């Protein structure tokens, strides 16, 4: 059961971040940080389907994490987050066509190992 929750967490976290990144790149660089600009960001969050989907996946990930904590130790649950770090970098390369340099791969791997060690 625990691994099922881990899978739900990883898939929903990755989906949420991919959707958010994809839609915001499509929108273009945000340059206005005044009240009007923040209002436009909020409107975007409430009207754009990929961003609404991103929030839904974020909520699924959050509740799946709570459910995982009910059946597994925190020391098992936290490394699940590290798994999503690696999956997101792979998918940023494959789906978003980002150029992931050796330094980024190395840094991401170090962060993932670090997150896993924090839970030990």
């Amino acid at each position, binding site marked *: 059961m625990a691994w099922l929750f881990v899978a739900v967490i990883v898939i929903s976290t990755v989906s949420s*971040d*991919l959707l*958010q*990144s994809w839609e*915001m*790149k499509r*929108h*273009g*660089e*945000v340059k206005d*940080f005044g009240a009007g600009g*923040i209002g436009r*960001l*909020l409107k*975007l*969050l409430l009207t754009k389907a990929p*961003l609404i989907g991103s*929030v839904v996946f974020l909520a699924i990930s959050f509740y799946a994490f709570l459910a995982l904590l009910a059946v597994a130790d925190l020391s098992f649950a936290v490394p699940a987050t590290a798994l999503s*770090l690696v999956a*997101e*970098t792979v998918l*940023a*390369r494959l789906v*978003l*066509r*980002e*150029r*992931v*340099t050796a*330094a*980024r791969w*190395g*840094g*991401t*791997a*170090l*962060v*993932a*190992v*670090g*997150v*896993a*060690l*924090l*839970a*030990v």
Partner: protein
Amino acid sequence: MSINSGHLVWKTRLFAAIVVTTNVVGNFALSWGIKHGAAMDGSAWSFVRVVFDPWVFCGILLLSVWMLSRMALLSWADLSYVIPVTSIGFVLNAAMGAAFLDEKITPMRWAGTLCIVGGTILVGLTAPKSEAT
């Protein structure tokens, strides 16, 4: 503005700092509120009532800022840059736990912290925005 100009690099670092800070402090405020006063008994009313606890309310406000600042950051920076760089939040969460919740930091956790800091610096030194391939 040219891709990855000095201005963009500093804007990226500023927004990464806002994303990390609002996430760490927001989560801490939520956690503190739930553990100190904002009791939840599982009833539907308790889920509504908990939102009006000052700490929980403050946490929700900060996490709203986190969401909007992350959206802004992702409008120009790569996902493969943002994810590892903002992972420094794991370290700050552990530090907040040690400072305010009396949690112990074992040698293994120190090793994990060093790995995360090293990984964050390594990715942070790369350009935030890449050309699509």
